[in-house]
Structures are given as C-alpha cells and as structure tokens.
C-alpha cells in the first residue's frame, strides 16, 4: 500500500475574478519512506496542493471538488471529519513552510512552541515533555538546546528557525513530511544545511517526504522522483535522474534552463518567457502553449493527456508500486499516445 495516493485532486477557489482552478486534476503517488519533489513556478499550485492534502485550503475543505481523492495509507482524506483531520495533521502528516521568519509565534519561547506540539501529539507531559523538547531540538541541530529553548524566535536566525519548525513537525512522529519551499527564504549555504537535515531526518525516521520548490535543483538533490506542476496540472513526472537526463516536456526543459548560467542558456536552453497565467483563466488547449517555443497547431485547441512514456509491462512495477517507476508527460510533441506504444 502506498503512503499517499492522490487521484484527480481539484481544489478550486472562489475569488473576485471568478473561480481559480488552482489545483486542477493532480495525480501523485508516494510510497512508504519515499521522496517526491514537486516543482513548478510560483503560482502553479504547489502550496495549494500541499494544503489540500491536510484539508486546509484557504477557504475550507469544501474547496476540494467532489471526485478528488487523497488516500493516506488507504484512508480517504477527502470528506473525512475535522476531528480525524486534526489527528492526521502533525500526527501523521506534518508540514513546514516557506517563511521561517514568520512561521513561529513571536510571543512565545521556542521551547514552549515545540512543547505545545509535543503535548498535542504525544502523552509526554511535565519533565518528560521537556526532555522530549530538548531531544527534538538537539536532533534538528540546535546547539545547546536546553538553554536555547528559553529564547524567543527573534533571537534565532532564519536557518535556526527552520530547524525549530522541523522539530515541531517531528514532534508528532509523522510518517509523511511535506516541506513547502523550506529553503527559499534562506541563504545558499544555509539552504544546503537545511536540505541535508531534511534528507537525513527523512532517511533516519523512514518518513515519506514531499518536497516542494520552484527550484528544480533543490528537489533533484533530495528526491527520488519528480512531479512537475504547471497551471494546476502535472505536466511531467518520473524518476529524478531520468527526468533530468531527458526532460520530455518543454516546460521541464524551461525549468532546467532557468537554473543554468547565462552562458549555458544562450547556447542551449532559454528561460521560459512570460509567467504563469491567472488561475481563473487557464489558456485553452495545452495550458502551457502561449509560452511554449515548440508549439504546434493542435496545442491551441486540445489539451494533451498525461500519458506513460513507454508502455511499461503490466507487472514491471512490482515492488516499487504501480506508478513509482513510470515516466509520464503531457505533451502533443510526444504523439497521440505520449510517445509510447
């Protein structure tokens, strides 16, 4: 059984300009202890995807459209009661956010905040609770945790705060950690440390990891599999190494281009022109076509499906699960059937 199995997830928000179809039919699979990276430019729906998994889209769970399915260890989370969702949050699935500077409450000590999380998800109280806080803070690399737990967030650097957030997330011993742009607000050197910490913790605790970033490089360092999101849809997915070696979707190639140096860019890949359109008005046809350098007439009128690249033998998945090893892409250039059989 896979840890997380998302099918046709659609999260639509009512906004002044209409309906923002911010997450619009996303499939995603994550095995026990597996690591999946979600990449896409800002506005492609990554954060909303993560919040939807926890039943926390901005306007309440009703924004997750009927027909969406999010299964956590086989348990359907869409439509489940608030009580169960609260147990899941932090206890089964924990999430850390982009802004470590503002993700901690400024008026409480760091220790109090971790302790509150410990108190919510474990039966550790009093002395044992305090020891657990010290242990957690030590585990995420806070030096001298029993002294620093008495400090307030403003006395911590951004990297240290993100470590505290991770400690809070680990307090409930979750089986799945969602990290939404955990290093975007940090310096490059700190970024590497935090990524190492996340990766190391994930391996040690055997957690599943859903790492979200706009930066392909960040996720490809940590994750076994990639899911490329554009305009609320998955446009390409597959094992990290394979996707990087031969990106099939022009958008993926564009993302790779935007991380190359200016020199390389001129030679081979250009950054993607323009920006992600408003979620209220996705383009007709392929949602990427107005920005695509390789557009063909068909892209304007009909949207391609997300199809497997090679027709994998039905039993080739085996131990890795039904779709774990499969590469998929959503592009007309790959032919009617996605370039496969």
């Amino acid at each position, binding site marked *: 059984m896979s840890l997380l199995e998302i099918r046709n997830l659609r999260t639509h928000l009512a906004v002044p300009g209409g309906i923002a179809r911010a997450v619009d039919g996303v499939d995603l699979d994550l095995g026990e202890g597996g690591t999946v990276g979600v990449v896409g430019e800002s506005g492609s729906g990554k954060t909303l995807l993560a*919040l939807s998994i*926890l039943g*926390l889209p901005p306007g309440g769970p009703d924004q997750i459209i009927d027909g969406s399915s999010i299964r956590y260890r086989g348990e359907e989370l869409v439509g489940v009661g608030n009580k169960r969702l*609260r*147990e*899941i*949050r*932090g*206890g089964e699935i*924990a*999430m*850390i*956010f*982009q*802004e470590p500077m*503002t*993700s*901690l*409450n*400024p*008026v*409480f*000590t760091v220790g109090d905040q971790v302790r*509150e*999380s410990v108190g*919510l*998800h474990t039966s550790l109280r009093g002395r044992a609770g305090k020891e657990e806080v010290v242990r957690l803070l030590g585990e995420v690399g806070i030096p001298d945790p029993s*002294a620093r737990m008495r*400090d*307030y967030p*403003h*006395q911590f650097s951004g990297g240290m705060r993100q470590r505290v*957030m991770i400690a*809070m*997330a680990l*307090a*409930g011993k979750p089986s799945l950690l969602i990290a939404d742009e955990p290093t975007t607000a940090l310096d490059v050197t700190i970024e590497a440390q935090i990524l190492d910490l996340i990766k190391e913790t994930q391996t040690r605790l055997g957690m599943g990891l859903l790492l979200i970033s706009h930066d392909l490089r960040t996720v490809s360092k940590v994750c076994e599999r990639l899911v490329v999101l554009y305009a609320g849809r998955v446009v390409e997915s597959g094992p990290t190494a394979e996707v990087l070696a031969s990106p099939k979707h022009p958008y993926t190639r564009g993302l790779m281009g935007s991380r190359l140096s200016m020199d390389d860019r001129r030679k081979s890949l250009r950054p993607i022109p323009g920006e992600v359109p408003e979620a209220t008005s996705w383009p007709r046809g392929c949602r990427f076509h107005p920005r695509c350098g390789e557009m063909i007439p068909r892209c304007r009128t009909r949207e391609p499906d997300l199809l497997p690249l090679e027709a994998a033998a039905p039993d080739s998945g085996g131990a890795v699960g039904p779709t774990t090893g499969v590469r998929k892409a959503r592009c007309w250039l790959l032919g009617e059937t996605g370039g496969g059989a």
Partner: protein
Amino acid sequence: MGRWIGLVLPGLPQLLRREAFKGTSVLLLWLGLLVVGLTRFDRVTAAFDGGLHDRVALLTLFIGLIGAWWWSFRDDRSHRIGRGEVPYGSGAGQGVWEAFRRNRMAVLGLGIILTLYLVMLLTPFLAPFEPELREAYQPGGDASRILNPPSVRNIMGTDQYSQDVFSRILYGARISLSIGLLAVGISVTLGGLLGAIAGYLGGRIDWVIMRAVDVVMAFPKLVLIIVIVAVFFPASLFVIVVALAFTQWPFMARMVRGEILSLKEREFTEAARALGFSRRRILFRHLLPNAVGPLTVVAALGIGNAIVLEAGLSFLGLGVQGGHTSWGKMVFEGRDFLLDEWWIATFPGLAIVLAVLAFNLVGDGLRDALDPRQGGGAGP
C-alpha cells in the same frame, strides 16, 4: 561584601552599579514606606484589628518593604549570573520595554500611575484626617475650620463642611482610580473576546458583532452613560462601572478584530493549523497573546477616559451615590465656591488631570514602543 550588599539597603547594589534610575526608585520607595510606617506607627499597629481598607494598607506596606529588598537582591544576583552572557530576561517584550524606557514622558506617566495606586492602597496611613470628619460640626467643634485656605494643618484647605480636602482626595482616589480600572477590565475582556471571535470566524458572526459595535459607537459616550445611569438611579458603583464598560467595549472589539484579521494571515497561524491545533486553541493561545500589546495601549487610554467620564457623571450629580467621595464628586461639591474658595474644586480637578495625563502618557508611550517603525517592537 558584594554578594550580600542587596540585603543591606534596597537599591544600593543598583546604585553601586551606577544604575541611578533603578537604584533611586527602589531606594525612594523603600524609604517612603519606612517613613510612613514609622510616623504613623499607631495607625499601622491599629490596622491589625481594623477594617478591610486598613488591612489592605497594612499588607501593601509589608509587601512593599519586603518586596523592595527581595527585588533588589534578586536583580543584583541575576546581574551577576547574567554578566557577559545572554542578557537577563531578554524576551519578546524586551524590545518593547527598551523602547518604552527611552521615552521619558511615558516613564514619568508610569511612575505617576504606580505612585497613585500605591497611595490609594496606603490611604489609611497617609491621610491626616478621616474623610468625613467635620470638625466644625463636632460637639464643641471649632466653627472657624470651615472653608480654610491651604495651610500647614490642611495642606489643601477645608471645604464648606470643614472636611480636609487632601484627605478626601486620598480617599476619593479609591473610587476614581478603581472605577477606571474595573470598567476597562470588563470592556477589555468583553470587547477583546467579541472582537477576537468576529475577526477569527468572520462571516455572519463578524457582521452581527460589528453592527452592534457600530450602533454603540454611534451614540455620544456621555449620553449613553447618562441614560444607563438614569435608568438605574440611584446608581451603585457596579452600575456605573458597567455603564462605563458598555461604552468602551466597542473600541476594544474593533481594535482586537483588526489585529486578529492581520494575525490570522500570518504564517504561524497556518503552521499551527498544519500541526493539528484546534481553531479555539489557535485563536486564544496563539493569536490573542499577539494582540496583548496593542490592547494594553487601548486599555491605558481607556482608563484615563473612564476616569474623565466618571468625573463628568459625578459632576452632573449622577455619580456613585452614598459612601465615599470621588474626585468628580468633589469638583461638583466645590463648584459654587470656585471663585473665592478655589481650593475645594481645584485640587480634586488637578488629581483627575494628573491621573488622566499619566494614563495617556503611558498609552502613547506603549503605542510608540510597539510600533516597529519607531525601533521598538519584538523584531530581531
């Protein structure tokens, strides 16, 4: 030497460390209490068997005397321990306090407030006369005690009933100062709660609460209070406090609602939700504590406001009926003598001005200190 010096004289270690402000305040407080205790020794000993106010005064005296010592010792010790390490007591409020301290007028206001409340608590030991002692009307009384101008014996003179104005001001502080505190306490609780709920839940509940706020705020405060008090006339202390609180809660509600609206968009709210905290817990344990700073500003200004309103009410003859006097009532009683016997109304009037000014200074000081653009706040 050194370690135990704090036990010799409170404030001494601080003075030796050249922290003149801390040192002198504590030393002056301690000496003042000592002088009061010694000069009114008979009253102090009698207070053991006295009424509630006497006992409160006694308790205040002892706590003050011992507290000054204890604080001085503790402060000195933590200074030794903390030297060269993490600054002692550095917390979220630290930056605010530092910014507040730089504002001299605000510190002065705080000093006045603390002194006023200390004086209020110690009144039985400080007042030279009983507030209702009418010497001219005693058997064999001295008729010349009526309407005396300020003198050594009656430093603020006597009124038309030969009562000592200074003593009456001291006793009047009890009503004037506690009414403000109580009224604001109630309005902060009620308004804070309603504002927090309105801001956090939004939607229809928000609409209902905010329309109630609008309605109450549409009336001039004094008119509203007069109506309430007139309905329940003669008004007890309780009615007046409730009437004052009723006119003030909308301001608290509006302020807290605004705070919560912006706080709930902050990422730590989302992080708390993602960690599984309940909505109630997030609102009361995570968001509301963040609104405490701004709330104290409104509260401080509100207390000053309530004192003025109470005075106005008393001046109209609608104030607390029976029992002890209040400052507003004293001004009211002295209004006919304003031109010739000016001291009867002027001194209680000055007391009102002093108290209100002090609360406004503190309120403004707090607001500036909490304003991150002015270098305060709890930022890094």
